[in-house]
């Protein structure tokens, strides 16, 4: 029993001290400083007097951090960690799946093929790290887009988009079903790349890291990834946003306005959106955005609604109708939410 409690506390605490996680204390700090200087810059641009106290009050506003929506984020985080802790042992690990693929390659190529000698270690490390990053980012885009476009998946992903106030912790405002989908995506994409590289390059394979984290992930997080889920407007400008998704672009993704709908599914790179016609670039000028989805009620921040309602909706879509017994518990205005995102 104590072991379970201990594991759970670690699950809560771990993202804050693990540089592989978005809300690692270092990344939160870097995002804070970035936001701080952005606001100073914005003040100066509009000839306003820079008032540190005012900036801090803006960044740590009670209306943001203690809003009903943010409280729901915190509760979801606490409950999701417990659910993930319970589910994780049943998920196929990256090591297990990589091993299966690695072994299968021995049969496919009838032995082991080492591509060694002519390629220096550093080149293998660079190609491996870039490949891993590209596949990871591309599969995130594919899954994210599917979560929006497939009604059966949207009913779970909608939980994330019902956030009406964004904070860095909103990244954890996800339904456990979505968490499982993303975990499976992560394991499959990493395992395929890892198995192929280890099979051909053996111990030459190395991940380019900073503080034991992929160099791409590290810089993505260090350079303000937490501002994606915030009210701080950081645009990279049209030129860069054709390649990288800026925090402002992700805020557009969270907007319920019709002109912003189904745009910017990408995580780090915007090339996937550009190729598929879903790219929306921003400028330094902050756009009017309303976060959330239309047609919702206050219930979207209730825990039982967040965790259970998507299943009812899933059932409704799957069967094409609602059982009479469900009608009593499904809020009337929400029965067709997936259609009016």
């Amino acid at each position, binding site marked *: 029993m104590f072991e379970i409690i201990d594991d759970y506390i670690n699950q809560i605490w771990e993202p804050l001290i693990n540089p592989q996680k978005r809300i690692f204390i270092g990344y939160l700090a870097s995002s804070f400083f970035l936001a701080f200087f952005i606001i100073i810059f914005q003040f100066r641009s509009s000839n306003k007097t820079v008032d540190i106290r005012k900036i801090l009050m803006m960044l740590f506003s009670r209306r943001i951090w203690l809003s009903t929506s943010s409280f729901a984020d915190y509760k979801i985080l606490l409950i999701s960690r417990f659910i993930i802790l319970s589910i994780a042992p049943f*998920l196929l690990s990256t090591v297990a799946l990589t091993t299966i693929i690695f072994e299968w390659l021995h049969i496919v190529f009838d032995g*082991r093929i080492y591509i060694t000698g002519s390629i220096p270690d550093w080149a293998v490390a660079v190609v491996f790290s870039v490949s*891993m990053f590209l596949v990871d980012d591309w599969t995130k885009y594919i899954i994210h887009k599917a979560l929006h476009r497939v009604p059966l998946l949207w009913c779970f992903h909608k939980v994330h988009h019902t956030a009406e106030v964004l904070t860095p912790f909103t990244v954890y405002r996800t339904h456990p079903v979505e968490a499982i989908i993303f975990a499976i995506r992560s394991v499959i994409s*990493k395992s395929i790349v*890892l198995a192929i590289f280890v099979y051909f390059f053996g111990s030459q394979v190395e*991940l380019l890291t900073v503080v034991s984290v992929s160099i791409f992930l590290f810089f993505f997080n260090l350079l303000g990834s937490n501002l994606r889920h915030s009210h701080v407007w950081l645009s990279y400008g049209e030129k860069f946003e054709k390649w990288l998704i800026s925090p402002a672009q992700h805020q557009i993704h969270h907007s319920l306005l019709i002109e912003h709908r189904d745009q910017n599914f990408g995580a780090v790179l915007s090339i996937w959106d550009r190729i598929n016609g879903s790219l929306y670039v921003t400028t330094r000028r902050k756009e009017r955005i309303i976060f959330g989805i239309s047609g919702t009620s206050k219930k979207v921040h209730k825990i039982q609604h967040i965790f259970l309602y998507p299943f009812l909706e899933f059932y409704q879509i799957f069967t094409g109708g609602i059982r009479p017994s469900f009608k009593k518990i499904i809020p009337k205005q929400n029965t067709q939410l997936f259609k009016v995102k």
Partner: protein
Amino acid sequence: MSRIVGVGAIALAGSLISGSAYSDGHVYSGFPVTVKGYEGSKNTSVSYTGQIARHVLHDSIKVLASQGTENTKSSTVIEDKMLSYFSSSEKGREIIAPKSKGVFIIKQEKVDDISGGKNLSGKTYSGQIAGMPGNMTGAELVEFWINKASRVNGGVDIHTGYNYPQLISKFVMGAVSYNQAVDNYLDEKLTAENKPNDKPYKDGAAYTGKEHSWDEAFGYFGAPAHTMALTAKQVYEIAKLGSKSKDPADALKYADHNNDGVVDLKTEMVFGPAYYAASFDKGGKTSYLHNIMGAYLDGRKVIIAADGNKLSDEQRSELIDYASTISSNWEAVLAEATFKYAGSVYKDMAAIQKALDTGESISKISLNYYKHWGELKGFSLSLQVGKDNLGGIAARINRLIGYGPLLPNLSQVVDIDSKGAYQKDQGSSWGEYMLHMLKLQKLLAAEFPISVLSNNMMEDISSLAGSLGDGASAEND
């Protein structure tokens, strides 16, 4: 997973080795005579020269096996000589290995200088060896291999891929030393009725039944009496006769505990089982050597404390705990060795595949492959002759390794006919056999408490997967 319970024994070993083992009485010698009514002149009850003689017989046979030849006349001479070391007790046998090398001077030159009338066949595992065809007992298998080894150049049969010096050596290390120690002296002879402590081991002996049983078990481990004063690396250097030392004189310095300028094989030399324990420990991840040595010393002290009286239930139980520490650590050493050579075989096969693809000669690489396969097979068979029946684990190990290495022409020994000739057939694909080596490493890592994992072919996967982070995260976008 049942083998994993050994982890407990290995982990506990550190605590079982009392501080006293390192301070006073840390040398396995000079233990007093406690047997009641002893009238002889000996002032110590320690005696394990018979076991040291058997280590020397084993080392010598390994060298002889590498002298095999296709010349019929000479091969008969080699075979007879090997058999004289394996199954006869004749006098005057020369110590062929280990021999003096440079400054590393060995005191004894004849087997009789250590102990007379000893052989190996009488002490070789008498059960059937399931991992090889022919339904042979351990001793029959060694004699069969001796016959074959004498008839092929250098003891290596390139038509079957059998490297006999390695097969014989690694198997004897288990079928004689490991089996005798853990299945006989540390098992059957620890019962209350068998070799009791209130009687001499045999009439007129200076040692009690339990004292000598324990000493014989220690002798089979092949560690210097002063092992606790040495590091694993120093023990390793002694076994290599100085060839792996910065200065060859260092090895002599480490071995020569009594400072008489020579190495006494009876008490100062390192033999097979202790050498392998040290070779894994020198990386610092494990302490098999000192766990085993400490348990031997502490167990011996329990027997001395009985002062020639019958062991109490409590004392015997304590002794069984030490025996268990020795058995589980020794078994782990054999599992580590099997794991290591499965990796070596895999690497050799990849090298052969590459050479074949590029049109290079594979003759030298193939010899390495056969050598490593011989070590793999020998150790895997040794692992199966311990105190416990490995059951399904043994069956899986034997199936994965097969009866012979998969040859580059994809043939493999599958049987032995009634005349003792090998039967070959088409084996698996090259890739499939390499996969067997990976599966074997996975099996050994899962079933035995091993942690050195040399030549781990999956190591890259687990370390890289760790740096990529876990998949079970709610973090997306």
